[in-house]
């Protein structure tokens, strides 16, 4: 039985693959004609092959539930999302620009605070930011960079343009899934790769490793780089192990490390202690060092902040970098780019209302049923109100929350998030599902952006929640160059 692609609904949202009933967008043309050539048996055998590959490759993530932690197989849809190369090149430049400005901003905050003195950002925004770390004041990490790895969430609105939804500057995860999605695709749909010019994604771990090595305070040929994980119970453990393996770096836990009286960091090896130069830490600031932050943390390393402040160690991302992924700061990013780089942002923000401002707050309170309200410092899609899908009771609750702590909330219009065909149900019927995109940006001496990123899909019809912890799935992301077509 063939798939009724002409019945696939188009029009309510920007569709990544299909532009009008039965017609694909240009970069997706070859993909679409390939998909059309498959009957439902072909499709289901490929869907099953992908599921099996995921289990065999051991690609999993952890969900925390009341009944304990469950290791789930990674949810994946075999239809990729396709972006044209010219559009991606522009996005790439915009992401680099944005991270560059954010790093200058963070460095300024912990030092001169010129941006506050010049009246661009009010001081209380900073004072009340839960991710501001006074312990970091006066520090100046290598290249002035605090956020070395950034996962920026992008969405496409009805107009087909990308907008930045949020910047994740603390310990963003997902890049391993981006890489694994590509390996699954190559196993399951190898035929398409022969026909379409798809940009490879595989060099991320090497770029990450080079960037980390360049941060070493000891100028030696082979600095010791480690990945610090909270351990096997962390939801991103798979990724920590994956990246360590792909970089050839040691995967360490807090108990493997120790800071000696010389304020240097060492790892415990079978031959005794060995000095560590760079830590790619995947532990939150507050658990990093019980001497300085959460006293009860057993995940961190006592004294690691001492070693960092003494200049004997590089931490990526630097502690305190999270101050810039506060959602109130987000609203100021266009101004931040202008202030530090004297440029206009290449990628726009989503319109954002700041609840601490009385006028904007009143607008938010009057339009709760139309807006998305977010707490300033949560990630993972928790603690949000999605206005159009909310009940009166939920809206009342959020009105109270906003009034009690206006600084902690922002609101944004509900976006018409773009969709892409996704196989759903036991018959693998293609239906539109909403998605977002998380590219990963590196900054050390130079900057680097992944080709594409991790595409996350809300698997429930009409849902906008893409987080894997809340039932989201994923797709491979293709940056397709159509200019070379016909030449080969």
């Amino acid at each position: 039985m063939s798939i009724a692609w002409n019945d696939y609904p188009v029009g309510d949202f920007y569709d990544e693959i299909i532009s009008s009933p039965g017609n694909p967008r240009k970069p997706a043309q070859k993909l679409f004609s390939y998909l059309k050539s498959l009957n439902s048996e072909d499709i289901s055998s490929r869907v099953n092959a992908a599921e099996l590959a995921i289990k065999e490759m051991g690609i999993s993530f952890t969900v925390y539930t009341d009944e304990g932690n469950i290791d789930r197989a990674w949810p994946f849809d075999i239809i990729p999302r396709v972006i044209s190369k010219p559009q991606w090149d522009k996005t790439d430049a915009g992401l680099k620009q944005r991270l560059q400005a954010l790093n200058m901003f963070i460095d300024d905050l912990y030092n001169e605070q010129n941006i506050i003195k010049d009246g661009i950002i009010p001081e209380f925004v900073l004072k009340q930011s839960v991710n501001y770390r006074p312990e970091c004041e006066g520090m100046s990490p290598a290249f002035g960079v605090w956020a070395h790895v950034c996962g920026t969430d992008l969405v496409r609105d009805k107009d087909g343009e990308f907008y930045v939804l949020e910047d994740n500057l603390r310990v963003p995860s997902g890049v391993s899934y981006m890489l694994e999605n590509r390996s699954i695709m190559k196993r399951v749909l190898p035929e398409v790769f022969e026909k379409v010019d798809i940009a490879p994604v595989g060099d991320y771990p090497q770029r990450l490793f080079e960037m980390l090595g360049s941060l070493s305070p000891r100028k030696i040929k082979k600095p010791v780089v480690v990945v610090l994980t909270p351990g096997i119970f962390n939801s991103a453990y798979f990724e920590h192990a994956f990246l360590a393996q792909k970089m050839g770096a040691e995967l360490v836990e807090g108990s493997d490390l120790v800071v000696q009286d010389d304020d240097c960091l060492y790892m415990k090896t079978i031959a005794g202690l060995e000095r560590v130069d760079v830590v790619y830490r995947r532990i939150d600031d507050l658990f990093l060092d019980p001497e300085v932050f959460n006293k009860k943390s057993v995940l961190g390393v006592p004294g690691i902040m001492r070693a960092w402040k003494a200049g004997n160690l590089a931490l990526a991302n630097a502690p305190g970098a999270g101050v810039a992924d506060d959602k109130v700061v987000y609203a100021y990013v266009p101004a931040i780019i202008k202030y530090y780089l004297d440029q206009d942002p290449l990628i726009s923000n989503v319109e954002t209302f700041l609840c601490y401002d009385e006028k904007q707050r009143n607008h938010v309170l009057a339009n709760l049923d139309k807006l998305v309200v977010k707490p300033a410092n949560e990630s993972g899609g928790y603690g949000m109100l999605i206005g159009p899908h909310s009940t009166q009771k939920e809206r009342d609750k959020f009105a109270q929350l906003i009034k009690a702590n206006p600084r902690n909330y922002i609101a944004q219009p509900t976006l018409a998030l773009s969709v892409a065909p996704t196989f759903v149900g036991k018959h693998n019927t293609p239906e539109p599902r909403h998605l977002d995109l998380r590219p990963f940006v590196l900054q050390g001496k130079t900057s680097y952006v992944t080709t594409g990123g991790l595409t996350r899909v809300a698997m429930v019809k009409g849902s906008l929640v893409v987080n894997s912890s809340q039932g989201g799935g994923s797709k491979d992301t293709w940056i397709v160059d159509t200019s070379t077509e016909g030449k080969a």
Partner: protein
Amino acid sequence: MMLSRVAERVYWSGRYLERVANTARLVSIYETLLLDLPKTVKLSWYNLIIINDLEEAYNERYSVRSERNVVKFLLGDEDNSSSLINSLTAVRENVRTTRDVVPEEAWEMICELTLYVQDNLELGINRRSRHEFLEDVIKGCLQINGLLFGTMPHVASWEFFSIGYNFERADMTIRYLEAGLTAILQLEDDDHAVNSQQVIWGNVLRSLNATQYYLRTTRSPVKGQEVLPYLINDPHFPRSIAHCIQSIISSCGTLPQSEPIIKHLKKISKKLDEQVDFSDAGEELLESLNQLQILLTSCHFIISDIWFPND
């Protein structure tokens, strides 16, 4: 240099992987042993529980010592920390936390094998399909071992893996010898005794994949006074205790700070060299094997003291 924690996990990966293969082989051989013995000999499946020192755990779980219960306990019981499925899960968890030092494909193969065992456990418990299931598990282990052997550079991580599996092997060989001796001591002194002894030693050899090389090396029919020294002292057979100890000594020799363990291992080698009268398969011999087992077990603690995390 290698992290202490990683060294410990790699060592346990080696041990558990070997344990998976040993358990599979043991169950599959035992089946044929029982079929070969005369009906007057009362050997029970429960002996497998005794060989593995699992009496306490078994009796908490089951009251009936039936074939099905024993096999289920050894292969699929979640409460038995040494069951095949738990050993395999332990390999998987250890590899999962040391993925940076083992070859990428190893992780995938271990996931595959774990999935296979989880999905087909019932095949192993049912008598008719058991042989094929166990063969598949053994092949899976061989495949993983082959991959590691063929691709891992012989640096510290390899040495710890190798110490782990050699240790487990030596331990198993002693257990099988003890089991064989115990079974023989239980035989009644009747017309069948000589024949039964041969069946028992034959199966000890088979459960260690040793029959072919035993015959070639000793040029002797299967009998206790030849089987015992072969499995204890043959310098070339990979599952003989002497060979395992020698391999552990040479692995340890490549690692830092290894003096105390090498000294201890040499003590074991020396004990192996002592003249023993193998023609008298009695309590004295059993006691001497027991001593050997205790010496071997203490190796683990010395290794752990030197190289593994101590907090």
